[in-house]
């Protein structure tokens, strides 16, 4: 695709927004009025910043359904105040019922973690835990046929790791205990456009989304 000129790129978004506002209001004249009264999302979505995974679009959800945090490689660090604040607000205040961590195939972050290229101090530091996964699962990863498969596996392992970190968040611990909040790992396959649920070890198949103690 030829690069669009500077002002065109912004005009395009502004025009796109006008069309969105007009069409939405035509379909439901009360839509924005209702939206303005507040939000009660059921799901907190933690996904990658990657431009190819617009969460609300790929899930065909409406505005108001997914509370969203997106960062490089959908990584949750134990000491990251940014994600921890999103989780606190979503779980303790909005009382979402589910937390989804969604990784994806062809993830730049997972790819970078497979190699040792210097990405600069900032990104090296951020991706350190993902690179650690490569070391921890060296043998398993080496047995995979190619880099695409390795990167997809690292993305999965990273989702599991993020979920493990989330389980230690005080608001999540409390909500799991008090009201059955559930955590779900997913992978989005960019080449197919499909979401896949990761079965957690010990999870019951009959109600697949639920952790073992339900």
């Amino acid at each position, binding site marked *: 695709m030829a690069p669009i000129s500077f002002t065109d790129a912004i005009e395009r978004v502004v025009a*796109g927004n006008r069309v969105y506002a007009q069409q939405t209001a035509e379909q439901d004249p009360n839509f924005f009025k209702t939206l303005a009264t507040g939000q009660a999302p059921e799901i907190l979505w933690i996904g990658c910043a990657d431009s190819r995974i617009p969460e609300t679009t790929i899930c065909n959800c409406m505005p108001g359904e997914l509370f*969203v945090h997106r960062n*490089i490689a959908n990584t949750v660090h134990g000491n990251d105040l940014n994600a921890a604040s999103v989780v606190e607000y979503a779980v303790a205040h909005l009382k979402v019922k589910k937390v989804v961590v969604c990784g994806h195939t*062809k993830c730049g972050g997972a790819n970078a973690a497979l190699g040792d290229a210097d990405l600069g101090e900032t990104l090296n530091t951020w991706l350190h835990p993902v690179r650690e996964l490569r070391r921890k699962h060296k043998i398993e990863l080496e047995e995979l046929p190619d880099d695409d498969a390795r990167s997809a596996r690292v993305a999965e392992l990273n989702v599991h790791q993020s979920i493990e970190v989330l389980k230690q968040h005080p608001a999540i611990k409390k909500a799991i205990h008090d009201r059955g909040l559930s955590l779900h790992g997913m992978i989005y396959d960019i080449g197919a456009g499909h979401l896949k649920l990761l079965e957690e070890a010990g999870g019951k198949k009959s109600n697949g*989304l639920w952790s073992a103690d339900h």
Partner: protein
Amino acid sequence: MAVPSEQVIKYLQQSHDRIFENNRAWAEEHRKKNPEFFTKLSAGQEPDYLWIGCSDSRIPAEAITGLGPGEMFIHRNIANLVCNTDLNVMSVVNYAVRHLKVKHIVVCGHYGCGGVKAAMTPKDMGLLNPWLRNIRDVYRLHEAELDQITDEEKRYDRLVELNVVEQCRNILKTAAVQQSYAKNDFPIVHGWVFGFQDGLLKDLKINFEEMLKGIQKIYDLSAE
């Protein structure tokens, strides 16, 4: 332990299954319209925009701007803050500017922001205190102007706008943006606010060049 009742479980299961059903339908529709759609996306991303917005569920960035998959790199957090000590957002800005070479960075706030309201509530918010303190700092920076607005709603609205402007300023403080701009004349930083009343984006029309010059008097990191 309060175990959710069968009914609650069933309800939650349905809402969850719906996401997968929706996703299949969405993918099928796009494949029908354009068989190459996902193959092309699979090759890589070249977004022109980085969007830094609020986590609020009512503002799906791509949907409200009419942009498709592959066009906008996204970071969303509580009250669309850009803190220069936050490795999370700094990694996003760094990757978007240095690796993806985005042309535009949009910081988008929204009127009626719960994060901004929470920050102005005289109450201990626990884990949220340090994050929300950044918004209190924005208030302090603009105390004289904000104190003069007597209508509470209007004062919040203005704080939402000023918060966006301050976060744009924080983006300009990064070495990645200063060095890329010196070399390539991009990215350009924009400050916008989304209004629920009409679904429209308002451009705060920040003067990018002037703001950058102002910042670099003290925060000049353009020399590599």
